[in-house]
């Protein structure tokens, strides 16, 4: 076995892993290795050839590969070690990393700190339990995106898309531009899980219908998909008998949710959060295992890569502090709890005492869309801060910066709720 030692190992070379590695380097860590299973760095961004990345971070609109390129250059310039085509098989609680590729064979890396940045995977037809036959022609939207944008193959001609998440919306436009007929985008909820701008730019501009509160209840076709049965659903997302209709199609693309890919984390003993599906972390993005950090989609699913970058810079910085002599802990941990209409908040706790810090960013998602809201931050019954938003949507992550000076030593919990303005 090929044994190596590194101060910091980063698992995954997507935007999260790249930004974390870059920041750890800039904070003085020199001995860094990025392990990436694909043949190139950049993660999911490499197949997102559309515009819309980097508005917050770079102040301009880039394509996915362009955005990734910036960070790829940054880590290369800094001389961070990179191994491509390398799959990480196991991370132990002692931070031993086992990885494999064809050239080095089995790598056994003794690391002092590990940053988990493995991204996420897509939910499947099976996970959402659609009955029927099992023909060719049913793809997750991301797989179809890979076929089209990376392999240059169009998977089908007559398409129905289930789920109005961003990947579904983007793929509706992509398939349309490739000459396929997109019959409809169906959404089981009364609102879309995607960004508003994607609904406008990907569906409205091409007259692709978006049908709310409808879902696929059966798949037909022996060899290749022939049709799907669609039904309207009630407010509990149950199909309403009698509303069924059939759409003939040879392709069904599923954009029904992303799941953080945490098999490695679980094996390492990292504790998971029920709602995010990612590790439970403090504000430095450190998990319950000292020296193991997580950032990006492996931690919680992001809609904008800019926030992935911000979050990963934090993780990279904390990892560097950890390696350089440790992190000062607050006397009292502060739990961060979701209140009314808040699905989850990352980080789940604030535990560190960081000297030069000005803000702690809270990332959160609301449970249901609302207009004209106030987002309130409480410590116990005491309101600390609020901000107004014109509209919140589950599909758009909310960032809420908390000034350091508001966080005091006697606090033991914070709570955020989202309510109608004036309530």
């Amino acid at each position, binding site marked *: *076995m*090929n044994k190596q030692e590194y101060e910091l190992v980063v698992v995954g070379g997507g935007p999260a892993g790249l930004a974390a590695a870059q920041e750890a380097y800039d904070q003085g860590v020199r001995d860094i290795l990025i392990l990436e*299973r694909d043949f190139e760095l950049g993660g999911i961004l490499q197949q997102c*050839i559309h515009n819309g990345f980097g508005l917050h971070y770079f102040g301009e609109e880039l394509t996915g590969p362009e955005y990734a390129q910036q960070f790829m250059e940054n880590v290369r310039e800094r001389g961070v070690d990179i191994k491509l*085509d390398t*799959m990480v*098989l*196991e991370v132990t609680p002692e931070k031993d990393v*086992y990885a*494999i*590729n*064809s*050239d*080095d*064979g*089995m790598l*056994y890396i003794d690391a002092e700190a590990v940053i988990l940045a493995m991204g996420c*995977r*897509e939910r*499947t*037809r*099976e*996970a959402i*339990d659609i*009955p*029927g*036959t*099992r*023909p*060719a*022609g049913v*793809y*997750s939207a*991301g*797989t179809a995106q*890979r*076929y*089209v*944008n*990376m*392999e*240059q*193959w*169009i*998977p*089908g*001609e007559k398409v129905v898309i289930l789920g109005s998440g961003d990947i579904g919306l983007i793929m509706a436009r992509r398939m349309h*531009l*490739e*000459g396929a007929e997109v019959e409809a985008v169906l959404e089981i909820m009364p609102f879309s899980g995607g960004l508003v701008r994607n609904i406008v730019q990907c569906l409205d501009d091409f007259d692709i219908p978006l049908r709310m509160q409808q879902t696929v*209840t*059966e798949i037909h076709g*022996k*060899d*290749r998909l022939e049709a799907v049965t669609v039904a309207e659903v009630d407010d509990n997302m149950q199909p309403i008998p009698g509303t069924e209709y059939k759409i003939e199609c*040879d392709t069904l693309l599923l954009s029904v949710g992303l799941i953080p*890919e945490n*098999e490695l984390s*679980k094996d390492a003993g990292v504790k998971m959060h029920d709602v995010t599906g990612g590790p439970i972390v403090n504000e430095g993005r450190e998990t319950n295992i000292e020296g193991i950090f997580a950032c990006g989609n492996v931690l919680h699913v992001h809609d904008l890569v800019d926030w992935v970058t911000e979050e990963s810079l934090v993780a990279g910085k904390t990892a560097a502090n950890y390696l350089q002599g440790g992190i000062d802990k607050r006397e009292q941990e502060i739990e961060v709890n979701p209140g009314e209409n808040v699905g989850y908040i990352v980080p789940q706790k604030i535990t560190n005492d960081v000297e030069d810090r000005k803000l702690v960013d809270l990332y959160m998602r609301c449970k249901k869309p609302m207009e004209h809201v106030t987002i309130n931050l409480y410590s116990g019954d005491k309101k600390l801060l609020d901000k107004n938003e014109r509209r919140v949507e589950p599909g758009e992550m909310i960032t809420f910066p908390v000034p350091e000076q508001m966080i005091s030593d006697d606090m033991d919990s914070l709570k955020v709720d989202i309510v109608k303005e004036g309530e």
Partner: protein
Amino acid sequence: MKDKTDILIIGGGVTGCFAARELSRYDLDITLVEKEPSLCTGTTKANTALIHAGFNADPDKLKGRLNMRGNQLYHERIQHELDVPIEWLGALVVAKEEEKLPKLEELLEKGQENGVPDLEIVKGDDIYDLEPHLADDAIAALHAPTAGIVNPFELTVALANNAAMNGADVYLEAGVEDIEDKGETKLVKTAKGDIEANIVINAAGLYADKIANMVGIDKFEITPRRGEYYLYDKQADIDVQTTVFPVPTKVSKGIVVTPTDEGNVLIGPNAEVIESVENKSTTREGLDEVLNGAQKTIPELSKRNVIKEFAGLRPAITETGDFLIEASDEVPGFINVAGIQSPGLASAPAIAEKVVGIVKEEIGGLREDPDFDPNYEGPPKFRHMSHEEQAKLVEEDKNYGQIICRCESVTKGEILEAIREPVGARTVNDIKRRVRPGSGRCQGGFCEPKVVNILSEELGIPEDEVVLESKESKLLRERTKEPLLNEEEVSDNE
């Protein structure tokens, strides 16, 4: 395709492949034809995969007797000869009500009469020692330690490959279209050409009646009876140690909860008579019935962590409810192996033994082939190895350093092996069944494009000719309009 053979077997399920392998012990020319592009696409691909102990077997029926013998042969021979996952987890039949106890006693007695070893009725805490997460109101259970599970895909592939290693020829996409009875021989017309056979063995599963009709036999009819399933993620943390049955009632055998050889939990099947032998759809009602039934014994089951739904069809002869394994009186040289419903898998070695006996009688004696090798080893299983063993494997062959399926840790080396075996894999699902890429929680979302790519390269066909399962199940339609590659590279690929 060759034009003559001693014995032609129709059907590449477990029945046909077992017969081919057992007959390849003898000095005979054996040929197996299968209509699909891969083995194991019929009933053998969608069942509960149990090697029943035989306590419920009816000794008055052929299927009961062959189940007993089959279980014995798996224990004594098959598990040692073929590199196929077989585990003797044992079975539990669980009674939750007093009034079910007599039935449990009855099963115990019947099992003992059938010669099932080590049967006992356990009570109280002893039940929960065997199955800790069983519903907490179980009062007694019949424990059968000789019940087992097998991987039916690997078994079928192992049998076909072992038969091929011993000289049998296997033709895929060679569906039988007609059979001409020429007296001494049969001229079998297949999609790959005509072949003249001295003996024809009909192991066509759901289509066995149609094959029999081709030579004018219409004494039986196959009625498909569907069973549906849910399969759970390996990481689902559902603790099931044995194969758990409820006490059967007159109306229903009840839903089984069992681990698979890979450590997934499988629940099912229900039973529903349907019209078409093609209809392997799952249904809302069927799947709900399966989950409700399973929760009666293992209450913690829910839809969470389900990674697959599927359905299989039992090829039943309803009049007799039994297997039909015999040389036809009407058409000499034609052997039916039909109605192989459950426990067809458990009985498979014994069915093959019986078929060999019939062939022996038809021909009047068989000479053993001294070169017959009963052993078969499949592709290595990277996922089951220690890191040290994995390291060694990559050192020997770089292809084992490339992980293609992230969920199941399947390497390119294993996929290449599967394609390069004597009866090699040709479809995406065939590769999935043999070496598991796409069998995990993402169901191929990650690896399918890679598997398509490997198949295309290895078989020398364009990617849009690669199929999922049947010949018509193509995955890709056409090239994108504005390729991101330069034109040359694209036309090279085409």
